[in-house]
């Protein structure tokens, strides 16, 4: 991108003109690309298994198995999405110079799955406690 005067474009040119920053942006873009490659392996956004209808320990065991698998996929997807989000901000020359990595994070695509995941865990917990 060429500079056409003062303002943000100058900031961009000074940033990308710096070799270290160029390497940093390239590295960030590469990681984001690889994250995109890994994301489809996890199905955490799909609410594909309904809670088991039967009762007794069989219900609890099968439901626990489903929730365990789903939980691991939610962890993986959440982590990949969170890192993609932060990297995108960090390599954006007009973005914040300091990213608050402790800020509460919520990806829209995971709101419904996490709600459903939580509901099913609470239901199972109540079943086991009664």
């Amino acid at each position: 991108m060429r500079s056409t005067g003062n303002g943000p474009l100058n900031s961009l040119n000074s940033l990308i003109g710096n070799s270290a920053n160029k390497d940093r942006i390239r590295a960030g873009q590469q990681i984001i690309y690889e994250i995109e490659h890994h994301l489809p392996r996890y199905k955490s956004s799909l609410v594909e298994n309904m809670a088991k209808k039967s009762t007794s320990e069989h219900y609890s065991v099968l439901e626990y198995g489903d929730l365990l698998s789903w939980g691991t996929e939610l962890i993986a997807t959440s982590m990949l999405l969170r890192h993609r989000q932060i990297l995108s901000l960090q390599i954006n020359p007009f973005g914040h110079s300091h990213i608050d990595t402790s800020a509460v994070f919520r990806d829209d695509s995971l709101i419904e799955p996490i709600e459903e995941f939580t509901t099913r865990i609470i239901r199972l917990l109540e079943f086991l406690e009664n």
Partner: protein
Amino acid sequence: MGLAWRLPKESTYVDFFQFLPRAKIHAEENGQQGEIDSIENKMNSTPAEASVHDIREFIIKKEEDKDLKMKDLQIVFKQLFEQHGEFSALSTEDSIDPKLLKSLEKLYDVRNLLLNRLGEDGGR
């Protein structure tokens, strides 16, 4: 002897779900999805015929599968960030939604309750 005696107790849900960063986990690499499906089908179709052994195997294999997935995630993050020194990975706790974090803790409570319950009645 109940199931609770046969499965290793994990100290916290953070250990159980192998939150990053931590030492490498050593999970056995078994091609076990077929076995899990087989036991699950049996428990669904003819629950009366599912034995304590089936239930125990189902839980063990599900938890081994969880360990494999978490190990795989460790490898993914190692590959993503080790070759690009400009950036570093966050811990699992800083990477996931607080609501998911609480739910995982509850799921760990479910596990302990389930093991205790199965241990008390032999998994019937």
